[in-house]
């Protein structure tokens, strides 16, 4: 479990949801403890948005149950709606109104009454440094400002649980940092945040707990460190002579996770293999290579990046990796 523990505010058991041929959720189990950022990490199409839509009462699951703040999302949907905030994948705002007017309307729809709705709109704009743009039409806002206003719109009633579905997808790094700061501030005040993301560094930066989901179910969960430890690390060995590659590969295969063959880069005389966390002692590795008669020029041990964790777990790279590679 993570650094924060507490009562679970979101609990999902065996959620299934099918759209035609697509099994969007395939037995999803999730427990989100109170007072933390819980990251739901998964590639495009993994079922993140569908899960969020079930939690926010927008979609009814075919099977399974979910409770949010103690209320069943199907039977007790109105009670759930009084406890949650949602910022979806789009900026759900009226572009033909000003930022302030958007917030006022949402405030009225949360039954604050028009006077309190006004006051709350002013307060939120000021607190989240959007006061200067409050009286401009939303259609003149940048993407980052829209997302921020959208996020703020979900805070009108200080929700117990805030659902953020890919809140920073498509944003420039500066706007992303602003969203991150806002999320951290909210959690510091006791809001529980369930955040979906395709970005590993986002989960790493923000979340105390992560569930990795793929094809509609959780395939791993834990703290970022636990997830990294689970797949151990990588050993990189450079040998002095091409003739030693075979021997070195056999020696490394002994250390490696069962059935894993080392990657060999013959040109650079480099071998690389991922190993379990208990095989990560440098002296053991050197001794193993020595016994095999390999004279290693260089031996290095790396902790895996979350990208590698992801690749190992799902068998496919994340969009971040592909996008970053394309940049």
């Amino acid at each position: 479990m993570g650094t924060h523990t507490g009562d679970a505010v979101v609990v999902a058991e065996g959620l299934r949801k099918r759209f035609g041929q697509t099994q969007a959720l395939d037995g999803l189990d999730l427990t989100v403890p109170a007072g933390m950022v819980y990251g739901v990490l998964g590639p495009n199409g993994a079922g993140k948005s569908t899960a969020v839509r079930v939690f926010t009462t927008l979609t009814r699951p075919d099977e399974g149950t979910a409770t949010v703040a103690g209320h069943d999302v199907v039977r007790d949907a109105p009670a759930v709606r009084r406890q949650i905030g949602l910022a979806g994948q789009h900026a759900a705002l009226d572009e033909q109104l000003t930022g302030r007017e958007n917030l006022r309307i949402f405030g009225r729809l949360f039954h604050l009454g028009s006077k309190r709705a006004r006051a709350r709109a002013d307060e939120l704009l000021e607190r989240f440094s959007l006061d200067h743009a409050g009286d401009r039409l939303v259609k003149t806002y940048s993407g980052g400002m829209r997302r921020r206003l959208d996020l703020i719109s979900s805070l009108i009633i200080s929700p117990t649980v805030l659902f953020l579905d890919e809140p920073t997808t498509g944003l420039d790094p500066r706007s992303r940092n602003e969203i991150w700061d806002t999320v951290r501030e909210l959690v510091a005040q006791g809001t529980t945040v369930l955040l979906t993301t395709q970005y590993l560094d986002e989960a790493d930066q923000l979340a105390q707990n992560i569930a990795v989901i793929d094809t509609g179910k959780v395939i791993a969960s834990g703290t970022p460190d636990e997830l990294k430890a689970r797949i151990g690390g990588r050993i990189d060995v450079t040998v002095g002579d091409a003739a030693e590659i075979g021997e070195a590969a056999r020696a490394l295969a002994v250390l490696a996770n069962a059935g894993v063959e080392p990657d060999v880069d013959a040109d650079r005389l480099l071998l690389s293999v991922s190993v379990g966390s208990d095989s990560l002692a440098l002296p053991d590795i050197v001794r193993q290579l020595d016994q095999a008669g390999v004279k290693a020029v260089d031996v290095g041990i790396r902790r895996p990046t979350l990208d590698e964790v992801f690749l190992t777990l799902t068998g496919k790279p994340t969009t971040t990796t592909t996008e970053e590679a394309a940049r």
Partner: protein
Amino acid sequence: MTAPAPASAPASALRSGLSDGLAVMSRNLLKLKHQPGQIAATFAFPLVSVILFGYVFGSAIPIPGGGNYREYLMPGLFVMSTVFAVMGALTVIAKDNGLGVMDRYRSMPMARSAVPFGQTAADLIIAMGSLAIMALCGLLFGWRAHNGVGATVAGFALLLLLQYAVSWVGVFLGALAKNEETAARIGPLIMPITMISNIFVPTDGMPAILQTIADWNPVSAATAACRELFGNPGLPAGDVAWPIANPVLATVGWCVLLLVIFVPLSIRRFRLAGL
């Protein structure tokens, strides 16, 4: 910071439903404030149509029983602008769907029927304004209502009833359309509905099939009803289709039918969408 507590259970479902509907309505009206272009278009549409249809076509089209073509035309233009109002609700609702505003609404503790009721109420208020502008334009170009205050008020009330019914059709189509692009493609389909009618020309000159369609088109009934109530020329005499012979009754009937079908359908759609 003192944040408001999570909204408590509503004291009365009806009251909160009403206040939600009012909030959605004021949102739509507020938008007009920022769209001088839209307001200008509201003014321009009647002016342009009266000039275009009244003087360009008018010079070539004979009126049954004689009379001024612009007197003949105005009731039809009232109906046309009323029917075009379907685009208002359709576009707003479809856009809200596309941008995820609908999802946010549905995740909030508000009455789900507030959106269609608030939208149609706002449309109705906007329609009152644009009908008033259109009537002024008509007066400017020689149109008059000849049957006294009662019949004139009845004529405009009928137009507003039609507008309200049509606006519910727009809400439903908007909910189906799911985004603004699809909505924009539905728009042009409304044109033929207004064209295959008695708005611009008498239907008895049309081929038999078109004439039947035109006679049973609600737009024709509404136009004939307005001609009758405003005392404008162009009411066909003799052996005509029932809706044209009894236009006021037929128009009310059409409106009730549209409302009976589309109000429950729309509300259902808003309650169940996405589930």
